[in-house]
C-alpha cells in the first residue's frame, strides 16, 4: 500500500540538501524496522519519493514523501517519530488509494518570512500581485537573466512582522528567498530570510488550488483519477 508522510524540515535539517535528505529517510526507516519496497535491478535501492525540493536554508511544516509499505498507517507515524532526526519530525500520515505523485502535481506553495518596515508600504507591496508584468533579475550559475515573475505570484499579504507570499512551486518555481529579497529591495524594507517558512502546498484541481492535505484526504476515500 501507499503511504504519504507529511513532515517538517526545520532546525538544523533545513541545511540538508535534497539528495542528502533521501539518505536520512532511508536510514530512519531502517532504524524503525520498516519494510519499504525496493527497486529491482542490479543495484536495488529503497524507493522513497520526495516532494518538490526545498531550497537550502528554508524551513517547512509541509513536506511530503511517498513510500510503498505494509506498515499500518498509525504505527508508521509513531515508529517513525521514535527514531526520526530532530527537525524531520512526522506530522501526519495519509494512505491514498492511488499514487498521489506529490512532486509532479504540486503547483504552488505558501511561505512566510520575518520582515520589518513593510507595514507602512502594505498597499504597494500587496499590490504587486495585480501587476501584469514584473521583471526580476535572477542569478543562476553565475549568469544573470531577467525573468517576468508576475505569472508566478498567487498572493502577497503583509502582517505585523511577517510577509506571506504564495508562489508557483513544482515544475515551474519561483524561489521564495530570492523573491522576498527582491520585494524588500524594491520597496525598501527588511526581510530576514533565515526565518523563512513554507507552511502549505497546493495541487490544481478543476482549475483551482487545492491544499495538499485536502487532496490526499480525497485520495484516501476514492481512487478515481482526479482531474489536473
Amino acid at each position, binding site marked *: 500500500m501507499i503511504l504519504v508522510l507529511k513532515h517538517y524540515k526545520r532546525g538544523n535539517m533545513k*541545511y*540538508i540538501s535534497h539528495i*542528502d535528505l533521501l539518505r*536520512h529517510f532511508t*536510514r530512519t526507516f*531502517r532504524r524503525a524496522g520498516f519494510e519499504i519496497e525496493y527497486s529491482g535491478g542490479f543495484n536495488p535501492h529503497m524507493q522513497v519519493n520526495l516532494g518538490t525540493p526545498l531550497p537550502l536554508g528554508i524551513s517547512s511544516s509541509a513536506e511530503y514523501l511517498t513510500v510503498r509499505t505494509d506498515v499500518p498507517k498509525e504505527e508508521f507515524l509513531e515508529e517513525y517519530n521514535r527514531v526520526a532526526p*530532530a*527537525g524531520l519530525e512526522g506530522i501526519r500520515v495519509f494512505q491514498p488509494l492511488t499514487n498521489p505523485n506529490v512532486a509532479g502535481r504540486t503547483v504552488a506553495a505558501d511561505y512566510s518570512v520575518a520582515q520589518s518596515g513593510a507595514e507602512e508600504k502594505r498597499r504597494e507591496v500587496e499590490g504587486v500581485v495585480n501587476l501584469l508584468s514584473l521583471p526580476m533579475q535572477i542569478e543562476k550559475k553565475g549568469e544573470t537573466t531577467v525573468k517576468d515573475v508576475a505569472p508566478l505570484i498567487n498572493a502577497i499579504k503583509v502582517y505585523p512582522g511577517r510577509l506571506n507570499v504564495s508562489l508557483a512551486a513544482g515544475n515551474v518555481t519561483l524561489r521564495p528567498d530570492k523573491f522576498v529579497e527582491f520585494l524588500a529591495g524594491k520597496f525598501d524594507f527588511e526581510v530576514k530570510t533565515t526565518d523563512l517558512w513554507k507552511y502549505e502546498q497546493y495541487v490544481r484541481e478543476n482549475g483551482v488550488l487545492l491544499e495538499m492535505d485536502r487532496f490526499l484526504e480525497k485520495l484516501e476515500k476514492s481512487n478515481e483519477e482526479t482531474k489536473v
Partner: protein
Amino acid sequence: MTFEEILLKSEKPARYSGGEYNTPDMEKPCDVRFCICMPDLYEVGMSNLGLKILYHVLNDQKNVVCERCFAPALDFRALLKENGIPLMSLETKKPLKEFDMVGFSVQYEMLFTGVLYVMDAAGIPFYAKDRGEEYPIICGGGPSTINPEPIADFFDLFMVGEGEEMIVKLTDLYAKCKAAGKTKTQFLALAEKIEGIYVPSRNTPKRRKIVKKAVVRDFEHCFYPTAQLMPTLEVVHDRAMLELYRGCQNGCRFCQAGYYYRPIRFRSKNTVKALIERLIRETGFDEISLGSLSTGDYPYLEELLSEVNPICAKARVHLALPSLRLSSFKKEFAESSRKSSLTFAPEAGTQRLRDVINKNVTEEEIRTGLSAAFDQGYNSVKLYFMLGLPTETDEDLMGIVELVKMIRRLYHENHKGGVNISVSCSVFIPKPGTPFQWERQITREEMSRKQFLLKDELRKVKGASFHYHDRETSELEAIFARGDRALAPLIELAYKKGAMFDSWTEHFHYEIWEEAMAELKIDKEKYLGEQPLDKPLPWEFIDIGVTRAFLLREREKAYRAECTLGCDKGCQGCGAMALALCDEVKKK
C-alpha cells in the same frame, strides 16, 4: 552578519550546523567540557572511527560533555574572519578557546598544518609555551603520535596509543585538578603519570623519559558505540565501521600499523554479531564495514558471515570486507561482497622483494585467489604496489609488469571480454616503529625514473592503467614521519606562507615548503637519508611494545630476503606481549 546568515552563505552549511541523529545530551551538568577536533573537513573527519569512539566514550561519562569541531573549508574560514567570529564547536557553538580541553586527532603527517589552521581560526596561540592558564589544554592523539616530535612544541600533551581508556583517566584527573584549583603545570605533571600520556614540556630530548603506549587489555569488552552519530551530509566513508580485531599477524616490514597496533586482540564472533545487530537498529546505515588490518585473517570470519549474512540480507544491509589478503580470498567472502572491483596489495613485483618486505603472498596464491574471483564474475582488479622499497632494482619493477600480464592471461584462460587491471604505485616511506625505520627514502629523481619506466611498460599491456603518487607529497611525508622538534618552526613558517590542507592535491604547494626549508636552513637529507643505528632515533623514547632488538633482527632478515612467519603460526617474540596478552598466544 549573524552566524546563521554566515552558514547560509557558505558552500555546505550542513558541515557546520551540527544536530546529527544520535547526538548525546549536551546540556547535562559537567566538570569537563572537551572538544574533539579533526583538522580536516567534516566529510573526512566524520568518516573516522576513532573519533566516534572517543566522542561517545567521553559523553558516556557522567561528568564530561564532549563536542566536535572540524577544519572549516576556506570559504567558511574567510566568512568567519570577515565577521570576527572565532571557530566554534558544532554542537553548542561554543568558541574552542572556552573549552577545558581540546583534543586534536592527528591521523597522519599531512594534517600538521591543519592543526595550526584550526588553532589560528580559533584564536589559540600555536606554541604551548605561549598559552597561559586561560587557554584549554591542547591534546594530541591518533596514529601520528608514534612520532609526535615535529609537532611536540604545539601541544600540552599527547595521548600515545589506544585512546578509549586513557582519555577517561585523563578527563577524570582534569576534573579533580580543576576542583582542587590546580594550575595547568600541576595538572600536566600528574597527567604524565597516566600510561600513554606524553608531556613534551616535561620530557625533552635532553631529559628523556620513556612513554609507554596505552593499549586496551580487554578488547572483547571494551567500549564501542553502536548509537553512533549519523552524518548530516554525505561523508567519505558513509557507513558503520566495526573492528573485528586490533593488531595484525602478518608483520609486513614496511607497515607501521602492523607493528603499532600490536598485540593482537580479537573480538569474539558473538560479540561482533551482537554489535552488528545493534548497529543496524541504532544507526540505520545500509552498509557495515568489518574492519581490521587484515580482515581475511580474522579466525572466525567464515562462521561469522554465515550467521550474520541472513540478518543483513533481511535488513538490506551490505557487509563490506575491506583489507582482504589475496591468500585469504575465499569464495564465500566474494559472494557476500558486491561484485564491483577487487583490490589487492602485492606491494612488490617479484618474490624476492616480497620476501624482503615480508609480504607473505606467493604468485601461486595470487593465481588461485584471482582465479576464484574471476569465476565469481569479477572483471576488474586493482593492485597496489610500492616503489623505492629497500633493495629494489629495475628487475623488481619489471616484475610488476609481468604480474599484470600474468593476471591478464589468467583471465583470458576461462573468460571472455576485457579485464581492467589498475596498478597504483605509492612511494615507500620509512616509518617509525618498523624494521625499515632506518632506511633511506629514494630521491625524487629516482622516483620519477621508476614511475616513468613503469608507465612506459604498462602502456603496452592492454586493459592496464597506471596511477602513481605525487613525489613531493611522498617526500614531505617522509620528512615529517622521521622528524624531530626542529621541524615545528618549519610547519609554522610554511603555514604562515600559505600551506594548508596539504593532503588535498589542489591545495598542496611544495614550493612553499622548499622555500620555508631554505629560509630556516633545514637540510631535508637529515630526515630522508639512512639513519644511524648507533644513536637513538628521535621517537625511540616511545615504547610501542615491539622491541628495538626485534626490529633490528627483522631488518637483517629483510636483507637476506628471509621471511618471518605470521603470529598465527607461532610467536615471533616481537615484545608487544609486555603490554597485553596477545590473543594469538592465548589461542594456543
